[in-house]
């Protein structure tokens, strides 16, 4: 336990400079805008007085380091500032959006695993069989289709042709669980399809390698059933690559599956990021970037811990 705590603490310590560099970089980007941030926000027709007022209000007339230190101080107090228009605390908006993205990402990842893992097990146990060949083609096709095409295809099939799901919209789970499921189904299915192809291929490769190991041969000669061997012996040692890909996917989706959220009108972090960039709400952009970096750091801490669980021979340091 102490070892794990030390390992986690070390990783958090190492992540701090990464977080600082990334967020400082975002803060510095505002100074690279042509004109001033105030002019970019108000547009070319704004009076110089108004531009100066906006710059003063949001601190854009101060040096970037001074602004950054003040922002950092606010972050430690849980104060990310307020939105550019509306003066709503950014933390309120962020956590609301994060909840939506968490739900969407969770459904998408679970869905992807539910599809990928069984098929990978079946395909690996019968190489060259019908499942192996069909999934090879299907996953190739899915990987070849970019997300912005996938969302349109899914909408065409499930909304326009079948009328099975609503085109857009969102109802919070706490407000109406059933309606929430109705609205999350199609975006989650889209995400799941996107990700399951990668999960399937990565797991299949590792399973095929594991199934050639001597201990599997021993299990077979002992007469153990194939399914038992697959689930109890082969799956766990084959998970390391999948866990890595899973970590990358979780980090990416928790940063907001922007295209899916944007297309299906899901009010998550990705949609908020697009909106913040379009209206030049730099404080919101900075907060979202910070959140994404922290999420990635936490996810990869978990990934490292997962390696140790998968293979007890691996120790976490």
């Amino acid at each position, binding site marked *: 336990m102490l070892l794990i705590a030390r390992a986690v603490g070390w990783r958090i310590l190492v992540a701090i400079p990464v977080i600082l560099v990334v967020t400082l970089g975002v803060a510095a980007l505002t100074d690279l805008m042509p004109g001033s941030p105030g002019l970019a*926000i*108000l547009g070319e*027709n*704004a*009076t110089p007085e*108004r531009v100066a*007022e*906006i710059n003063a*209000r949001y601190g854009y007339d101060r040096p970037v380091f001074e602004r950054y230190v003040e922002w950092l101080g606010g972050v430690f107090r849980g104060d990310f500032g307020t*939105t*550019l*228009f*509306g*003066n709503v605390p950014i933390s309120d*908006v962020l956590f609301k*959006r994060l909840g939506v993205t968490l739900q969407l990402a969770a459904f998408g990842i679970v869905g992807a695993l*539910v599809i990928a893992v069984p098929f990978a097990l079946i395909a690996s146990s019968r190489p060259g069989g019908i499942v192996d060949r069909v999934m090879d083609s299907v996953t190739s096709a899915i990987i070849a289709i970019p997300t912005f095409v996938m969302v*349109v295809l899914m*909408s065409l099939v499930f*909304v*326009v042709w079948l*009328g*099975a*799901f*609503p*085109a*857009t*919209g*969102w109802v919070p789970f706490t407000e109406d669980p*059933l309606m929430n*499921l*109705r609205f*999350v*189904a199609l975006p989650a299915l889209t995400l799941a399809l996107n990700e399951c192809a990668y999960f399937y291929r990565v797991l299949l490769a590792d399973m095929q390698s594991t199934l050639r190991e001597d201990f599997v041969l021993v299990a077979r000669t002992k007469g153990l059933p194939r399914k038992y061997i697959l*689930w109890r012996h082969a799956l766990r040692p084959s998970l390391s690559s999948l866990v890595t890909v899973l970590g990358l996917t979780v980090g990416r989706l928790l940063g907001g599956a922007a295209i899916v959220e*944007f*297309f*299906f*009108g899901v*009010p*998550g972090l990705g*949609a*908020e990021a*697009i*909106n913040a960039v*379009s*209206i030049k709400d730099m404080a919101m952009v900075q907060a979202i970037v910070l959140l994404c970096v922290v999420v990635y750091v936490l996810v990869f801490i978990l990934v490292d811990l997962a390696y140790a669980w998968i293979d007890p021979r691996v120790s976490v340091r």
Partner: protein
Amino acid sequence: MTVRGTRRRGRLLLPLTAAAVALALASCSTTDPGTGTGDGTPVRGGEIVSVQSGAISSWHPGAVSAAQTFQRMQAVYGLLMYVDEAGVVQPSIAESFETEDGGKTWTLVLNEGVTFTDGTPFNAEAVKFNWDAIAEAGLGGGVANSFQSEVIDELTLELVADPIDPTLAYRIAESLTFIASPDSLGDQGVEYSTPVGAGPFILESADAAEGEEYVRNDDYFVEGQPYADSFRTVIIADPAQRTQTVIQGGADMMNGYEFWFDDAIGNPAVEMYRIESGGFRNFVFNTTAEPFSDVRARQAVAMVIDPNALVQANMSDPTLEGSTSIFPTQSPYYDAKFELSADLDAAQKLIDEVLADGISPDVKLLVPAAPENLRTSELIQLAVQQLEGLNVTLEQVPLSDWRTIAFANDDFDISFYPGIYDLNPVSTSLPNALGTDGRENFSNFSHPDMDAALAELRGASDEAGRKAAVRAIQEVFVEQLPFVPFAVDYRTFLLNSDMQNVVSVRPYILLTDQIWFANQ
């Protein structure tokens, strides 16, 4: 079903069944569409849901940028005055806005008894406060800086335009029609986010990603209105998804182009409501270079184009009909005698005469690159190539460079114009488009008869005078043809078919106070 097998199977069965049930419930069909129509008597109740492409960025009354902003502001602020579908300015919260000296001095009279939702009076002081704030903030397109205002009494404001402006009513209806409570607005600029107006609805909550919710203003100045209990916006970026949302019943209205609404055709749950926007689509001649420096060449080309084919190609809609008038049929300036007619033989004769005079037969057709522009330009090319002796080459240029190449450098003979010409208000738009020094005279057209007719228009002090001047302008136009219109522009709304009393005002929004729903 008998559960057999090992305990391992049983562990999977329950979650799999639960997932299947959840999915089945999730895929249940959407709400049934309403049927039938109202009997004409407005019915209270219901919620109007409008789907929009993005969030509103500022509630400052001067920060009017697009239809989606206008629609929301109409809900909260109401309209001081507006431009109706025919292009005529109508008062709303204002009782009247008139000039008796050709546009130098204007008098605004407000309706009595109107209040903002914070209880403060909607009076002349409030209007002046807003307009002064807009002028100071540099908003409103500069309109607020083009006059001085003075409060005469509680309900009367006098404006002095500098320079004289016979079109001030239009400009105010388009840019200065929203008035916020001065107590609420204060000295805030574009960051103003808690709007208080005198409109049919009150903003209750706003979310930049989801949309806004509004509740009925029970003290709205028109008794009995609004009919709906609430108004809501839903933000969806993709136009196809917006369309599907309306079709499925997730929203009641959206505006857009008709070719977005193909999936709605034949669906009884929705209806399309089409409005002539007041603008038209056209292609432009360079009147300072051969062959189109010769009016006969321009007339010949106008006689061989098929406006129906052009608009159908441009809008990807085989049902559309073209038009060669610069005014839509609803406009008070429309006159059918100014529509152009096709005649290939007469056109060929004109071209033969032109070429016999030694005029260059080479025509460069400039296309701002976009699929719909190219489709339309290829049809123009085919039409012109019917005229023997002319050599037409088509040249595509990036859209971002097109204006420079075509109009700054005059490097074209014909060019498809990738936008809409809107000739309202006529007093400023016609001189801009057709006057010798017109800012939008892309054809470099100059004719003394046209300039004389435009001078008559500028000097006209009443509608009769304006109509006579516009008639004279159109007579010169169809003779000289600096550009050739081929279709009026339409804006189309996709609406819940239960929606009644749909009234549209420019810039293509619906009056939310007047809408009611049948089949409630």
